[in-house]
């Protein structure tokens, strides 16, 4: 976290201060190149799909991808908020590894409580409540017990995955109600309800992160906790709050997930790589390599388009994971390159 002030100075001084050293200027230039390179790669892949993949630019195909990205998008926003509040250092910064497992547990709670006959409002409250409770566990571990987020959330991930297994016995718990059917197949103005959920949630996140005082203070907490504390911000509450928010996202995401699959299924934990990818890839859209609402939604959709484009090109889906992993590696390399090393 102590790296950030130097980074900020670098970004600003690269433009304004005349006393910039040659190395700093080269680094600033390198950062810019890496960023435009990463964004360029995104663009080239999408343009290639647009030209080569039949039906890629079709309105319904794009809507399909938005719909397919709804669950991932909601979870990626949860992860982004944690990264913003905890700082974007990959090793010591904010990260919630339990997010995907938490979604699985919430989905199990939703399906099991519904099949047990509880009324809809109760099941929804139980589902979202479970998510927030797991978030609270993370917050306690990270903020009050002061455990490194990477390790704290890893431990919580295991607890939560175990709880899901106990609840579902590792089986598919099927459920269908009017509520979930409306989410799964309903549409409004020609756009499916799932797609609407993502659109509305994205607008909400944009407003929250970039147009409110809380959003600004959250960036301050992640960017420079000491300065934020000196300015009178309750850093612990903000950081803890990010984990609660991630838990809330897990709860909301699980409702969309169960609706889409008409069941809670094992294997939700596999989403973790995509969630981290969406949050990390999103950082290249910001000059300071921090997650933004716009960056997160763009990279979420990019991941969706990647799978979609490969399928339309009739290229094996086995390539998708590889390309996704390569891009993460590039972006992580880019962010570490952009941050001046103090080690």
């Amino acid at each position, binding site marked *: 976290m102590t790296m950030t002030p130097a980074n900020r100075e670098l970004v600003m001084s690269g433009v304004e201060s005349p006393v910039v050293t040659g190395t700093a200027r080269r680094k600033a230039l390198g950062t810019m190149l890496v960023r435009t390179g990463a964004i360029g790669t995104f663009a080239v892949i999408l343009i*290639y799909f647009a030209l080569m993949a*039949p*039906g890629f630019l*079709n309105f*319904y*195909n794009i809507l*399909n991808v938005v*719909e*397919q990205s709804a*669950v991932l998008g909601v979870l990626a926003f949860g992860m982004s908020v944690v990264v913003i509040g905890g700082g974007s250092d990959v090793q010591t910064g904010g990260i919630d590894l339990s997010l995907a497992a938490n979604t699985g547990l919430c989905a199990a709670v939703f399906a099991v409580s519904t099949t047990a006959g509880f009324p809809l409002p109760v099941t929804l409250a139980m589902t979202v409540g479970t998510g927030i409770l797991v978030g609270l566990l993370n917050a306690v571990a990270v903020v009050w017990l002061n455990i490194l987020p990477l390790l704290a959330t890893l431990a919580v991930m295991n607890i939560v995955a175990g709880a899901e297994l106990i609840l579902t*016995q*590792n*089986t*598919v718990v*099927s459920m269908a109600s009017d509520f979930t059917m409306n989410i*799964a*197949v309903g549409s409004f103005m020609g756009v499916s309800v799932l797609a609407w959920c993502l659109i509305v949630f994205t607008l909400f996140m944009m407003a929250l992160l970039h147009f409110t005082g809380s959003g600004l203070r959250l960036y301050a907490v992640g960017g420079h906790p000491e300065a934020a504390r000196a300015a009178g911000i309750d850093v612990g509450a903000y950081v803890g709050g990010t984990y609660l928010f991630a838990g809330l996202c897990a709860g909301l995401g699980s409702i969309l*997930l169960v609706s*889409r*699959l*008409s*069941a809670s*299924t*094992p*294997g*939700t934990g*596999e*989403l973790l790589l995509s969630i981290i990818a969406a949050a990390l890839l999103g950082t290249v859209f910001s000059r300071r390599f921090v997650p933004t609402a716009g960056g997160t939604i763009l990279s979420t959709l990019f991941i969706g388009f990647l*799978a*979609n484009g490969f*399928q*339309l090109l*009739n*290229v*094996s*889906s*086995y*390539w998708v994971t590889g390309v996704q992993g390569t891009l993460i590696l590039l972006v992580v390399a880019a962010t570490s390159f952009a941050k001046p090393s103090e080690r």
Partner: protein
Amino acid sequence: MSQTKNKSRRNFFKATAAMLTLAAGVCAWSSASMGQNSGTETLSLSGKRIGISAVGTDHHWDLMAYQGIIDEVKALGGEPIALDAKRNDQTHVSQLQTLIAQKPDAIIEMLGNLDVLNPWLKRIRDADIPLFTVDTATPYSLNNSTSNNYSLASEVALQMVADMGGKGNVLVFNGFYGVPVCKIRYDQLKYVLQSYPDVKIIEPELRDVIPNTVQSAYSNVTDMLTKYPNEGDISAVWACWDIPQIGATQAIEAAGRKGIKTYAIDGSPEVVEMVANPESAAGAVGAQQPYEIGRSAARNAARYLAGEHVPPFTFVPAVLITKENAKETAGPFLPKKEGAAN
């Protein structure tokens, strides 16, 4: 950069194609040796795009069936759009959704959980795309290519009862009742056991899982052997598919327990080999021909698209391999192991 990528991709495809050809050759040979050729019928999928969606290909059965569909679609001149969801239901559903938008001439769906799939299979039919399934009985399918699971499962159950001498306790894996073929096989087991009240299923039943099926079955059965330490406490282990049978058989052998035999269905080469081995605890396996089942689905799609009548299901013959008949029956199921490059 993209050129080298294309090149390596091409190389990759070449290698895959070579492997598939090899597998196809071996399977064609073995099916010919079993007297099951498709006959003289002239079918064609020329100019047709066939969507192939599989929930996963990580087991011998799945891989062989998947390759069977792809190979036959290509052999009939069609273009396969082959999608493997890697056992992830979300990926599976997204792939089906995109596939519907691609409007192929037909879709062949292979395995998966019906509760998750059915709403999407309905969408396929709503989009007027003919749907064929492999091992998946659903009202939305025009034809389901499969084995006769009713007869095969009751044969396996009866063999188990016979080996047990009509009495004793059975450990049962029942983790996938939501998968249609597993439901049929489990129900057949229960139906057979109705006539033999002295054969009892040990409660609670065990749960087989994916992934780590073998390891998990091994530790489950080891735990149960510890819980029931005496000879005769357990006489048999049953599973609806044969990957848990591998773990169960290994656990029984490792514990040095005699008088416990394992039973399952599918016929993976390593299991057939276990059954054929007189020393092994594997009692019997219902062996199917997954590659032929896959080919059958592609041929049915071709028949339908040519305007022919297609029955609601096609049963591809299967064989019960037991310790007693392994010498005669196991042969065709073993060589695949050497040749199929899996």
